[in-house]
């Protein structure tokens, strides 16, 4: 490749012309009941720390997946909207440019990765994230006996001073890719990998898959006319599409 081509490659916005896989999710707000099974599953799968009562009261909880609740109207016509909020794995993530030590960057799977070992805790990424889905370890949280037996051996535990966030259960994605590679070097098929939240959702409101693949379930759901993206006007290009809730007596816009 000539020098000019090399320079052109490095001067291209985002660097990647296409991703190997472009992992994404759809969240069907019509199906979400706000049961928070996804929150618990995420906590169990990813060794999320239990911060304790006083830290929780200080608004320091660590919930990679959280359910946002918005009330509409007054009793007896009150409506409650649930919005599961987790890292949107933005393709133009404001948080990635913020980190001075490259502890967060965009990988070839379209994921916004967080490298715990590299993080020095400046917390700039959390300020830059418009969705507030980044969580900081204010102390080194520990698990009381016998809860430490429940920890997932595939996932690390983080010490104080490290930022963490939803990773689309990257350990499961890696495992699926490894198995697919062993199995005749094929690509991961749709449905072979599911993050903990999608796996535990009782109403199947969360659908995960490869947005690159037009035949995958997630791609089809993302093309639904009810689809929108949270804080679209921030131009972060998230990989998560939310499907608007259909209210009984109103039309979906």
């Amino acid at each position, binding site marked *: 490749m000539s020098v000019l081509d090399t*320079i052109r490659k*490095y*001067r*291209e*916005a*985002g*660097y*990647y012309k296409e991703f190997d896989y472009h992992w994404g999710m759809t969240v069907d707000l019509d199906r979400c009941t706000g049961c928070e099974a996804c929150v618990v599953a995420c906590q169990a799968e990813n060794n999320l720390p239990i911060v304790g009562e006083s830290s929780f009261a200080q608004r320091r909880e660590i919930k990679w997946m959280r359910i946002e609740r918005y009330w509409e109207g007054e009793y007896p016509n009150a409506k409650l909207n649930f919005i599961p909020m987790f890292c949107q794995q933005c*393709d*133009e*993530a*404001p*948080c*990635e*440019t913020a*980190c001075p030590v*490259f502890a*967060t*960057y*965009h990988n070839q799977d379209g994921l916004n990765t967080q490298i715990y070992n590299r993080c020095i805790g400046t917390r700039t990424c959390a300020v830059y994230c418009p969705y507030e889905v980044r969580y900081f370890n204010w102390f080194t949280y520990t698990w009381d006996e016998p809860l430490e037996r429940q920890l997932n051996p595939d996932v690390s535990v983080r010490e104080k001073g490290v930022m963490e966030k939803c990773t689309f259960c990257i350990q499961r994605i890696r495992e699926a890719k490894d198995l697919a590679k062993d199995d005749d070097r094929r690509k991961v098929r749709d449905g072979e990998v599911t993050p903990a939240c999608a796996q535990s959702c009782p109403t199947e409101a969360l659908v995960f898959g490869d947005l690159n693949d037009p035949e995958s379930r997630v791609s089809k759901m993302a093309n639904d006319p009810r689809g929108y993206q949270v804080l679209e006007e921030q131009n972060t*290009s998230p990989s998560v599409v939310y499907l608007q809730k259909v209210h009984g007596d109103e039309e979906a816009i």
Partner: protein
Amino acid sequence: MDITGTFQYEEDAISAAQGLHAAGIKNVSLMSPIPMHAAEKALGLGKSNVRKFTLIGAILGGLGGFSMCVATALVFIMPTGGRAIIALPPYLLITYETTILIGVLSTLAGFFLVAKLPAWKNRPYRVEANVNRFVVAVESPSSNEVKKAEQIIRGAGALGIEQTGDTL
């Protein structure tokens, strides 16, 4: 052996120094408590060479800073935020800072080199030179220059002359 002449007024000291120059005596230094811009003109000190240090330092700093940004970004390709790997707005800002940093450091180096500091060896000096007197000093004049130097210094209106003057 050095000769130092102490003067109360600026013009006297300058005329003494000019006289010594005209007589061909080398190693003449004119010391004062404050910079004398008139003296600099009289003694033929034009634009300083420190400028060259600043310019070269700034250019090297700029090139070095930009190369540092580009080279470090290419070691491991880690795209961030949908931006290019060689992103100009941040890199030019870093370049601006390194330009000033290396410019400042090389100006400092230039100052020391051009002023020939640090110089801790014994050289002619009088304490009053840093208070309120002007001191003209001739460093190690040859034997036939001594009389002429003393004559010129006395003629310019020196307050005092010392043969083996204070050294630093």
